[in-house]
């Protein structure tokens, strides 16, 4: 007599096994090395290292600029995705392909190009600087670089959902007397919301870890325009592995908490819209 009833879907043990082993090898082991290296520190030393004014300023810049850049990307990514899905225009395929460019471009190239454009003798910088808008070599430059690398994440997550959105829903809303704005607010946006949130999360997470492009445009001035990954690299270059991993640990914890919160928000909206649908 068998004690367990066989599952409806076969292969549960195998797929769970592969999932756990793979995640452990690729993600968990390297991350736990970070924590292990840090554990060599006393708590006072760890606290002093990770909460010095200079490091605190870098957290503010890294997370603040990433948040701002991801929000801007959401607004313009949504408009871009809308344009690509709902309208047809000449060279549309080319524009569509252009969006992926920030994925493929080495980030250092992006950083150098953006710096060249926004520096005070650059194409845009020469007009912006007299207006008092200093982009390159300051925090605004950081936001611009992060916007550049984050944009495709938003467009590429929203686009397929928008393509699948049934036009009939909007037509039905229109026949029921909804205004254009009401349709967008009550029909289109709620359906897109999970995709927007995913795009936002990806863009934000990518921005927090970005180093290559930011380093060229930021100016890297202590207390003003130093991002946290730069402080980590600086410590590594001084052979201070423990100090580097201590700051990395704090970044990991903050990032993980933020991602967890966003995922929770996503699950909550899924449940809510699910209940509304039934």
């Amino acid at each position, binding site marked *: 007599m068998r004690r367990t009833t066989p599952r409806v879907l076969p292969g549960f043990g195998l797929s769970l096994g592969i999932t756990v082993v793979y995640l452990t090898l690729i993600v968990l082991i390297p991350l736990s090395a970070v924590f292990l290296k840090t554990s060599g520190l006393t708590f006072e030393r760890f606290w002093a*290292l990770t909460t*010095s*004014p*200079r490091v605190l300023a870098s957290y503010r810049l890294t997370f603040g600029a990433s948040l701002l850049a991801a929000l801007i990307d959401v607004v313009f990514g949504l408009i871009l995705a809308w344009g690509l899905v709902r309208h047809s225009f000449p060279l549309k395929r080319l524009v569509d392909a252009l969006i992926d460019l920030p994925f493929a471009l080495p980030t250092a190239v992006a950083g150098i190009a953006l*710096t*060249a454009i926004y*520096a*005070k*003798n*650059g194409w845009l910088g020469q007009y912006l600087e007299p207006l008092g808008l200093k982009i*390159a*070599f300051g925090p605004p430059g950081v936001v611009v670089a992060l916007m550049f690398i984050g944009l495709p994440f938003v467009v590429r997550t929203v686009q397929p959902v928008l393509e699948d959105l049934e036009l009939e829903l909007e037509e039905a809303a229109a026949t029921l007397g909804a205004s254009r704005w009401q349709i967008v607010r009550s029909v289109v946006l709620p359906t897109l919301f999970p995709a927007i949130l995913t795009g936002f999360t990806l863009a934000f997470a990518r921005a927090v870890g970005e180093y290559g492009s930011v*380093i*060229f445009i930021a*100016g*890297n*001035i*202590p*207390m*003003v325009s130093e991002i946290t990954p730069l402080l980590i*690299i*600086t410590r*590594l*270059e*001084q*052979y*201070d592995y423990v*100090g580097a991993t201590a700051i990395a640990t704090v970044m990991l914890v903050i990032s993980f908490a933020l991602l967890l919160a966003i995922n929770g928000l996503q699950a909550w909206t899924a449940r809510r819209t699910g209940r509304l649908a039934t």
Partner: protein
Amino acid sequence: MLAASLFRPIAWVGFTCAWLLVLSVVVLAQTTILNVSYDVTRELYKDINTAFATVHKKRTGEAVTVNQSHGGSSRQALSVASGLEADVVTMNQAPDIDILVERGGLVAKAWRERFPHGAVPYTTTTVFLVRKGNPKNIKDWPDLARSGIQVIVPNPKTSGNGRYTYLAAWGFALHKDGNEAAAREFVTRVFANVPVLDGGGRGATTTFTQRDTGDVLVTFENEALLIGKELGADKFDIVYPSVSIEAAAPVALVETVVDKRGTRKTATAYLEFLFSPAGQEIIARHYFRPQDRNVLAANKARFPDVALISVERDLGGWEKVQSAHFADNGIYDQISVKR
């Protein structure tokens, strides 16, 4: 028919393998050594390596190829410490070789005594590069601390070049006012004038020359002279301050690697070549100050006299400088939070 068509590919494979074997024997007969160096010596070592190969072949009959690897000095030292098989290291500051002594004894403790001049084949110094005609009238260190002047310097935390600049400014103020509080106040003011901190010397050059940012670039003499040559002497002027710092570029043999690869003799000959008149002549041609008195005298026009501060002689040595200034919460950290 079938047998023949089967045989042919096998014959080709066999033929190719045989050739590869012959080729690899030819290649193996040639000794290769790897020189791991810092960022701005690419051009120098390309010339040195060719010259050395010719001299070495004539003297010993051994054909040798020297491969080179470049990057920020400390980062390169870190790669060697974590396993990059360098036969020799040629850095721009002693701490980057000392670290290889500390980490598993890759380099002999007495590396300074292995070669002439404390194992330093050449020095350079820190100078100012200003825009043509010197519109902001920058003459000496105090001008860098004036308000309204933008100073471009690479990050002292990650670059030897920036570190020497910081120490030169410190040494100048210490020499002038005679006390540390004044020196600290002076470097704080100089670094408050820095709008961009690049990771290395070449990055700072780009910011100053290509991005048109800053009134003065403080960098190595060889880099300043190279900028004049590459980008035209009509755009920039070099200003020599009243006092500067001697930036000594030390070299060393990586003991564990040369023993393992059996390249001790060749690698030693390579480093000795740097100190020979022929090597010193190439060094001078690349705007580094040679140690050989005769070669230096022959190139006098290129290298004006400057009063030089030495880290070892005047600032108490690298170990003291490292722990007092650049360690965690050292003086440099303290002044950069204050800006």
